[in-house]
């Protein structure tokens, strides 16, 4: 596509940069293309169009923070010694000098106190990991709430869910490595989780720890997983995630000129490359500043791991907080029967709930498309309000997550707010069930009222803030019609489909299981779309406009006749 660059800043060159770098660059390009055929691949992608919106940046934060974590992680491996061999610490940190500890912990202290920039890199690694996981979660919320997960992007949604899972495991294996008192307490709990597994629990524990807890194998094994296995999988999945993004082309918000069939935005080279590349430096720089200024995981304060010691307020990193919260609030359910033990109190919060939540997340696109029967491709994003049930489902899940997470800090809440920890726990036991339901209902109704608000703006115009008083003494606000671009954007959405009726299904001759399934689906679809506001038809808009013109006219004649005729300055 040709672009009018007649007026573009001359420093940019009035003609797009050709291979003006001279013969050398051209010769190298020729050499490479004759062997790799890069020209064909680049022809399509060098000016690939990416749409612009702030929310598209969230996934970028995840990507760039992952790169930062890889870089800082390589630095740390140069000094970290993943060994549980007991040694006497002899480093720069006075309070622990002479103390017996594992080599892993001692080398973590060395990185912090004897290697220049070591503590910075450790803290950047930890902050980067937290930002990686947090931005993945927020990116996932963006993708879900705007409907970007719909066909053809369901598989990329699943890849994203797996990335979140792997990122979490990567985080756990990572913060367990320094072998300090806090991380050792986390590993101790993980040992308890494994032992609670039915039938094979104690075997799993003995195999993972190379014998009885804590043994001397867990740190080197976590290390292998943390720096090789999981990063390898993460890299592969990130690559697949990006390739699919390029293949599908990015979704875009509806607006004038932006349709399901096109993508409108800036070309990869130069604008998007510059913005994304520049953003990498900003993410990197932000993490560096955080690593330098904000203390995180000060392992020297906890001391080496000792199975007989623990600190009050021991908590995992925040992304593990919600299963830990469930672990705290679950009642003491254990079944003892036939000489065996079934630890529901561990299995439900740790072995059942996290995998279940992940499966629910992965299934969401398929559940929705089954209920709505929508099998079309979608490239235009939806505002959360225009899919009230979907939005409400996610807010319910977020509420469950948030309450569980808060339960993971029940001791801190009790201390800070001077409450009884028992009462907080009892409250949370109910709240994790009731909270999501309340959140669902409120969110759904809230979305629908926002839809009504949009409808009002389309039909009656926007509020100008101009109040007029009629001769009778009544007050009214002057409304004006929306600019066409805005009005178009508000109406650029699909009408919700009409679910099948029971009569239609019966009439179609379906019987047995098929009919029952279709009826269930129709019922769910009815609930899914119930009370949603559809966009006005052309006729309704026309009538409303007519009405508005009439009203405006009337209003103006009232202004002319009423006390406002001299203008507000008279009063």
């Amino acid at each position, binding site marked *: 596509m040709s672009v009018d660059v007649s007026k573009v800043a001359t420093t940019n060159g009035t003609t797009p940069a050709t291979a003006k770098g001279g013969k050398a660059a051209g010769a190298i390009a020729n050499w490479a293309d004759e062997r790799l055929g890069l020209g064909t691949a680049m022809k399509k992608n060098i000016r690939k169009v990416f749409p612009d919106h702030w929310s598209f940046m969230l996934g970028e934060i995840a990507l760039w923070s992952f790169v930062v974590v890889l870089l800082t992680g390589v630095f740390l491996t140069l000094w970290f010694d993943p060994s549980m061999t007991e040694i006497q610490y002899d480093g720069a940190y006075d309070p622990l000098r002479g103390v017996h500890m594992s080599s892993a912990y001692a080398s973590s202290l060395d990185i912090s106190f004897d290697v220049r920039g070591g503590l*910075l890199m450790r803290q950047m690694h930890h902050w980067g990991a937290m930002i990686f996981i947090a931005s993945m979660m927020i990116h996932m919320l963006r993708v879900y709430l705007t409907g970007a997960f719909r066909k053809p992007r369901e598989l990329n949604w699943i890849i994203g869910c797996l990335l979140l899972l792997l990122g979490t495991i990567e985080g756990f294996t990572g913060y367990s490595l320094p072998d300090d008192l806090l991380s050792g307490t986390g590993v101790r709990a993980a040992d308890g989780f494994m032992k609670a597994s039915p039938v094979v629990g104690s075997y799993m524990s003995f195999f993972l720890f190379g014998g009885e807890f804590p043994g001397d194998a867990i740190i080197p094994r976590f290390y292998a997983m943390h720096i090789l296995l999981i990063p390898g999988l993460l890299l592969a999945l990130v690559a697949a995630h990006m390739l699919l993004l390029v293949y*599908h082309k990015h979704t875009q918000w509806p607006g004038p000129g932006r349709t399901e069939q096109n993508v409108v935005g800036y070309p990869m080279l130069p604008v998007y490359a510059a913005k994304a590349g520049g953003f990498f430096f900003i993410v990197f720089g932000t993490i560096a500043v955080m690593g330098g200024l904000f203390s995180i995981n000060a392992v020297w304060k906890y001391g080496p791991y000792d199975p007989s010691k623990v600190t009050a307020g021991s908590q995992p990193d925040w992304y593990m907080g919600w299963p830990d919260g469930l672990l705290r609030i679950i009642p003491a359910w254990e079944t003892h029967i036939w000489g065996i033990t079934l630890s529901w109190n561990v299995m439900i919060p740790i072995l059942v709930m996290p995998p279940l939540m992940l499966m629910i997340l992965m299934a969401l696109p398929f559940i929705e498309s089954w209920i709505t029967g929508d099998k079309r491709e979608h490239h235009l994003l939806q505002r959360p309000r225009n899919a009230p049930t979907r939005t409400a489902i996610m807010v319910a899940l977020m509420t469950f997550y948030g309450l569980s997470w808060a339960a993971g800090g029940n001791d801190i809440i009790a201390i800070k707010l001077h409450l009884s920890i028992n009462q907080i726990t009892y409250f949370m036991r109910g709240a994790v069930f009731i909270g999501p339901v309340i959140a669902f209902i409120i969110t759904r109704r809230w979305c629908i009222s926002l839809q009504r608000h949009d409808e009002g703006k389309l039909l009656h115009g926007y509020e100008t803030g101009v109040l007029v008083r009629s001769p009778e003494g009544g007050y009214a606000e002057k409304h004006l019609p929306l600019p066409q671009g805005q009005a178009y954007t508000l109406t650029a959405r699909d009408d919700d489909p009409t679910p099948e009726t029971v009569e239609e299904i019966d009439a179609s001759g379906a019987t047995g299981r098929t009919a029952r399934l279709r009826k269930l689906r129709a019922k769910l679809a009815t609930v899914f779309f119930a009370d949603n506001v559809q966009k006005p038809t052309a006729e309704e808009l026309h009538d409303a406009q007519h009405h508005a013109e009439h009203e405006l006219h009337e209003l103006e004649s009232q202004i002319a006749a009423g006390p406002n005729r001299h203008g507000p300055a008279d009063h």
Partner: protein
Amino acid sequence: MTDAHNNDAHGGELAVVEPIPDPGLPEHQWRPTDVDPAQEKRAERQVAALFGLSALATIAFLVSYFTLDVGDDWTLIGNMGASTLALGFFLGLALMLIGVGIIHWARKLMADHEMVELRHPAKSSEEDREVAVQAINDGIAESGIGRRPLIRNSLLGAVGLLGLPAVVLLRDLGPLPGKKLYHTIWGSGTANAPMRIVRDGIWTPILASDLEIGDLVNCQPDALHNPERYDIDPTEVEGVNLQIHKSKASLILLRMNPGDIKPGKDAKGESRENWTVNGIVAYSKICTHVGCPISLNERTTHHLLCPCHQSTFDLADSGKVVFGPAGRPLPQLPIAVDDEGYLVAQSDFDEPVGPSFWERDYYER
């Protein structure tokens, strides 16, 4: 299967008639930097200045690296030392200024024309599909895998069997649990030298009279410090072995009014009356939920609370769970005094300590 742009009975259609017609892309607006050479020069200088400041920050980083020592002054500012602080600040500044500079360049000086690219459906064209399916079918037919079940099945069997080495090779990850979880070093006392209970950390034995009512002491078995006294090989209580023993043998002593104690039953159903000494009770310190060391004592109630998940145990009532997620009482250690008057263990715990596991039994106290 429905086509991507098909009219589906429930799906509606994509190309509906919009109530408001698409006004099309708004006209491109020239920026000040596009039309005013002065503005353009100014933006150019701004970008170069940002890059220049970044270079200064990098130099400051290098100066900090060579002038500040990380080990010397770790107490400074949030216990991070001047070195970490300066390195992080200047590195971050250098990086961010480059980022801001590049983005400023893109926004002010690079062409800002929005381009339109057409999308294609994700699926391949019908022709491509047909050719691909044909190619697969041809390949399969030529391999003869469908016509030669003997080859196919023997190959599947052989490859499937190769899964076993992958599993078997992991066997040596660790030993089988055996009865290890059922025993602690408390059972290693002898008739001549019953296992003394010593204070954790300072390893001194405890006279029953040392404790006042309400006192709580964290304890370990004497063998961890004095293995020879119990004919135990010293390497058995060093390094990793020490950690393993501590993870099972850590003990809590609590003295209370003897009248407060409600003696429960042991594994054989007999009373635990003789398990205490003058109101001193001994319980495992390892939580029966997921294994944290329990450490918070509610002095007035003889309740012990685990800081990890808040399971609360009543030490006056056989260590029963009074609150929280733990499903089993804390194991109690039967104690007595030796000839010198020091507290000792009568025997090992009569049940495994620590978190529950599948094959372990349970008995009512």
